[in-house]
Every structure is written in C-alpha cells, then in structure tokens.
C-alpha cells in the first residue's frame, strides 16, 4: 500500500514536470517564414524573410495592416543573417513552411551554391519550396509586393508557378533536392525560372496594391535562367523555355499554335507529352536523338481548313511536328552556341547509355556538347476538335 502510494506520488509529480516541453516551440513564438530572398551585397549575404502575420491571414476578417511582414538582415553567412533577424523580430524565424526561395540575380551571377548549403543542412527546412531567380532585380524587391487573390504573396508565387508549369510550360518548378542533384551532376547544368517585378514597386509595397482592380505592381514569371554550374550566365525566352521543358520531359500541358499556309493559325492544346532522349557514341562522337510524342486537342481555329477530313488533321499534325522540331532544334543550337552549357542533361544520357565512353568525355563535356549533333523527331497526334468541328468562320467568310 505504502509502495503504491509512493508510486502514485512519483507519477503525479512526473506528469507535472515531464510533459515533453523541452524544446517546445509555441505557435505564438514562431515567425512563420513563407518566402525567403537571398541577395549579395559586397561579400555579405542580405537575407529577406517574408513572415506571415497570423492575425491578418486567419479567418474572414480583413485587417487593416499588411498580411505579411518583411525582415531583412545582413551577415557573412545565411545562418548568421537569419539569427541577426532576432534583433528586429520578436519571434524566431521558422522555416518549415517556406514556399519560395528567391535568389537575387547578382547572387545568382556570382554563384549560388554556397547559399544553398544552409537550406540543405538545416533540419527545419523542408524540400517542398520552389527556387526562382529574380530577373534583373533584387530578391528583396520581389518579396515586398503585396498581392490579391492569395493574401500571402509567397503562397501566390508558389501557386502561380505550379499552375503555369502545368498549363503553359515555359516555366519550370525546381525544388532544392533537384537543384542540388543537377548541380553536382557532371552531365547537366541547372536552370531556374525567372521572376520579374512589374509596375510601380513603391505602391506595390503598400496595401493600395490590393485595393485597386488592376494592381499597380505585379510579379510575373518569365524565362529561364541558364546556369553554368552555380553561376547564372543568361536567360532563355518563354518559347525556348517551353522547348527546354519538351526536351527534359517536363511538359504537363501547354498550348502551341501552327500557322496555316493561307494565313491565320490553329492553336493546339497539348494534353499529354512524353519525351525520350537517346544518346549514342560512335567513334568517340556522341549523338543525341530526341523523340517527342505529344497528344493534343484543337483549341482554336482561325483559318480556313476543313477539319471534318482526316486528311486535314494529318496535315495539321505534320505542321505541328515541323514547328515543334524547329523550335527544339533552334533552342538546342542557341544553347549550344550562346551559352555552351548542357542544361538538357545530354551528358547524363550519354553517361547512362555508354558509361565507358562517358569516362573519356566527361572532363571536357561542355566543349563536346557545343558540337554534338541533335536529331529531333516529333510525333504529335490530334485527338479531339473541341465542341464544334468546323469553325463558324468557314461559313462567315464564304
């Protein structure tokens, strides 16, 4: 009896003292970071952290202050700058809910690898945020703009990139682990999507930006940043970005148009696309074959074609093939000539198909890449015509 009484006492006192609060992080002690920007100024890192203002985001009541707060600090390393933020912020920055990481163009040009180590090492940081480059801008500028539709700008940036990758395809979503594995790969160089702040940035920082119908300042994704290892060396246009996504088999859905011979054009909605890249080495000369299989629906017709005939469809398919082949070939040769870096991962393809030859090739792969012949073959199939078969334009004009 005495024994069980003692045990009970011990248990009760344990309940009070051992409640698992050792490392507790209460929600109201955390500054939940949703966006982070890294710029370089001199040899110091300039960190911008976009933190959610919980009272503004929660529930339906729209408050009067901004839904997010921005903290900035400088330091010789990312971690140091992040900790320095505690001198401004009452709460510690919590990185587990990060949505976007924006790298300033100047940092990207100087080399981004050093900045990425922290993100991969920090146990709190996850792997589910997107990494983008602020095109001709500082990362901090892009995080200052308030947005509508999504109250939290970083969440909006995340969803925008996700949607545009799925529907339009000139952009590409890159997560940290993908970026790092490309960085360390010998046969591939990374690309990241560009982010441009447009319009009146001074208004963009205030709530006025979300009060008008047309926001004075907006953020837009455009183009792909081409890297040589971890240094930004140039940009690809939206069309080239699309070609890049075709080559790397990342097309989930996009739209392309083909011009008709007698003026006008047909737009095709690509619903599925699959790309196979094959590499071979003959007499130490590597070769790449790209085979794209795309399925598309007719989305818009602005020219005179009799779509009820199978023959016409075959013709349109042929035009689409030629156009896409052309686009891919032009993009590949532009990258080969202007940037001289293998962003398509052809080196990895050769590595996989012929590891022995790759051993000889890998040391001077970028020089080899410039001259390798790339054959593109596109095989597109048109499936449906949409709600109508022949366009009403057919009857209108006649």
């Amino acid at each position, binding site marked *: 009896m005495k024994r069980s009484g003692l045990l009970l006492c011990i248990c009760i006192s344990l309940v009070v003292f051992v409640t698992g609060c*050792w490392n507790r992080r209460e929600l109201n002690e955390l500054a939940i970071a949703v966006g982070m920007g890294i710029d370089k100024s001199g040899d110091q890192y300039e960190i911008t952290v976009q933190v959610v203002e919980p009272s503004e985001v929660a529930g339906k009541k729209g408050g009067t202050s901004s839904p997010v707060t921005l903290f900035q600090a400088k330091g010789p390393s990312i971690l140091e700058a992040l900790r320095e933020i505690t001198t401004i912020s009452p709460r510690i920055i919590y990185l587990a809910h990060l949505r976007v990481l924006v790298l300033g163009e100047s940092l990207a040009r100087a080399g981004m690898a050093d900045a990425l180590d922290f993100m991969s090492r920090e146990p709190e940081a996850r792997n589910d945020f997107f990494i983008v480059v602020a095109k001709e801008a500082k990362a901090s500028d892009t995080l200052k703009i308030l947005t509508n539709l999504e109250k939290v700008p970083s969440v909006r940036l995340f969803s925008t990139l996700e949607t545009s990758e799925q529907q339009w395809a000139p952009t590409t979503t890159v997560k940290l682990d993908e970026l790092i594995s490309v960085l360390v790969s010998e046969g591939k160089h990374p690309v990241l999507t560009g982010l441009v702040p447009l319009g009146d940035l001074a208004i963009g920082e205030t709530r006025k930006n979300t009060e008008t119908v047309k926001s004075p300042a907006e953020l837009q994704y455009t183009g792909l940043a081409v890297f040589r290892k971890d240094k930004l060396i140039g940009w690809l246009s939206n069309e080239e970005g699309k070609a890049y996504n075709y080559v790397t088999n990342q097309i989930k859905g996009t739209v392309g148009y083909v011009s008709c011979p007698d003026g006008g054009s047909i737009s095709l909605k690509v619903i599925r696309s699959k790309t196979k890249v094959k590499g071979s080495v003959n007499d130490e000369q590597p070769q790449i074959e790209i085979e794209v299989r795309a399925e598309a629906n007719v989305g818009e017709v602005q020219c005179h074609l009799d779509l009820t005939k199978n023959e016409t469809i075959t013709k349109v398919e042929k035009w689409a093939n030629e156009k896409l082949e052309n686009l891919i070939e032009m993009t590949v040769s532009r990258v080969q000539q202007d940037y001289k870096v293998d962003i398509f991962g052809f080196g990895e393809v050769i590595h996989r198909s012929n590891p022995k030859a790759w051993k000889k090739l890998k040391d001077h792969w970028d020089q080899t890449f410039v001259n390798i012949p790339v054959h593109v073959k596109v095989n597109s199939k048109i499936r449906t015509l949409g709600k109508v078969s022949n366009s009403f334009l057919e009857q209108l004009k006649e």
Partner: protein
Amino acid sequence: MTKNNEKVIMLGKIKISSRQFSILIAIYMIGSAILNIPAMLQIVAKQDTWISTIVALVVGLCVLPLYIYLGNRFAHANFTWYIEKLLGKWLGKIVALLFLVTFPAIVAILTLRNIGDFMTTQILEDTPIQAILIIILSVVIMGARLGLEPLARAAELFFPFIMVLLIVFIVLAFPHINFNNVQPVLENGLKPVLKASLIFIAYPFLEPIILSMLFPSVQHTEKNGKALFTGVLIGGFIMVVITILTILVLGTQTVSFAYPSYALAKLIRLGDFLVRIEIIMAVIWFITIFVRLALLFYISIVGIAQVLNLKDYRSLTFPIALLLVPLSLLAFPNAAYFQEFTPIWTIHALVMGFIFPLLLWLIDILKGGGKKTP
C-alpha cells in the same frame, strides 16, 4: 515479484512461440539499420547499391545454416554452457564473456547512440542527447526486467502497425521513383558493389548469431531454424526494399543525406491533405529500434548472468544500463567519425559474427558433436 526472485531465471525457463521469435528477428533486422544502411551503402556503391543489397541478402541467408546449427546446439542448455563444454570451464567462461561484451553489448551501445543521433539531428535539435538516451533506455530496462515473453508479445502487437506503416511508406514513395537514378549499371565495376555488400552483410546480417542464443527460449526447438530463417528473410527483405527505394527516389545524391530513409519519408504526400507525415514514419524506426535494443540488452545481461552464475539476471539491468549511456556517448565523438568507423566495424562484425561461430562449429565437429546427442 518476490517469488520470482527465488527461482533461477535462465533462458531455458521462458518460452516464446516460433512465430514471436520470427517477428522479434524481423524487427531486430530493421531497427537502426533502416536509418544508417542506405547512406552507408550509397557512399560506396553509388547507383549500384541495389545490387549490393541483393547480394548481401543472399549471402546473409547463406550464413544462417551455421547459426542455426549452433543455435540448435545452444538449445540443449544455453550459450555459455555450450562454450564451456567446448573450451573447458575457465577458457569457456572468458571467451563467452568476451563475446558478449564485444558483440551484443557493443551493438547495443551503437544502436543506442544511433537513435540518439537521429533524434538530435532531425527532430529535437536542442535537446541534450543524454535526455533521449536515458528515456529510451529506461523503457528498454523495463522491457528487459519483464523478460522475453512480454517483449515478444509487445513485438507481436507492434508488428502489424510496423508492416502497415512500411507498406504505406513504400506505396506512397512509388510515384517519385525515377529509374534513371540506377543507371548506368556497374559503372565503376564490381569492386565497390562487393565492398558495399560486405558492409551490409556485416550490419545486420551477421548479427543473427546473437539471436540464435535465444533458441532455448523458443517452444518448438525443431522449428527454430525455420523461424530464424523467416525472420531474417522478412527483415532483410524490408531493408533491401527501403534501400533500393531511397536510391530510386533520391538518386545517388542521397550520399549527402545523413538519413536517406527519413529524407524519403519527407517526400511522401498524398494529394494536399496527407503531407508532412514523416514523423509517423519515424515512429516505426523508434519501435524497431526499441525492440532491437531491448533484445540486445536482454541477451547481453542474461548471458553475463549465466557466465557469472548469477541466480537472477535482473540485478544486472541497472548497473549495465548505467554503463551503456556514457559508453554510447564515448563510442564516437561526432558524426564524421561514425562514417570512418564503418570499415572497422565491418571487420569486427566479420570476426565476431562469422569467424567466431565458424571456429565454434569446427571445434564442435572435431569433438564429435555432429551427432545430435546432448
């Protein structure tokens, strides 16, 4: 409790079923290896790790007949008695003690440190490692004091949960698989592949020798061999699948992850509602590591008690547990040392888990023990 103390509690008195024995072994094989093995192998064999794992599983199963043979010999009394019979009383005692201290006890120390390291790197960064070690060890002490039967029953209860969570884990990781990650095959030749498989064989496929000491505690002695085989096969197969999955999903880049299987768990998502569930996956690790640790601890102290002719092994639980905490902290100073330690451990495990039982077997044969008479 008081009445139990009067009885001589030795391995032979306690009985678990062969099914429970298999489950204990399967969980034992997964525990702690699931955290370390993927990273340890991928550093060496890169994209060919999957070949190494399969080689290791096959070799690991091939070694089992040796353990089963020895286990069946232990089954007549116990491990210490058997060694004393083979090597003479005093030499036998010394060898048995040395083996117990340098193999099961050290594996226990390393396992304890592994779980502590995992918690302090991935989950509770600022918590002192001692706090974690002591809490885990206190459960282990409780388990060991209660004895093998409750432990086996607990393992039996945990097993369905472990399997369900593992299957969920594997199925949800499937969509992320990229077969390009395992190409090109055999780029650097066979040597690194064999090296990696040697690491995997040493840890944990050479450890069932420890488990074969449990043979006297299993009900149907004649089924023990089969039970051991099934357990190692299930545990080993899960390890192979998880390791291959980490390469297929994360690629050879996983080398830079300290805990690839946890990194893999972080990727898992089902739509937008089932996300960030890695901690549930970590719970499997905890359960498996608890069972592994409890078994190692139990076997070590029971063995030591037998060598010292103690009436009850329970008096040893607290003193030895007290030793385990500082020893596991002393085992290696930092995470980098653990990686350099791998080849040394491989050799140690080969000596303890293969050469030692082989010698026992040879002596046994020479002494005419081949005939199945006790």
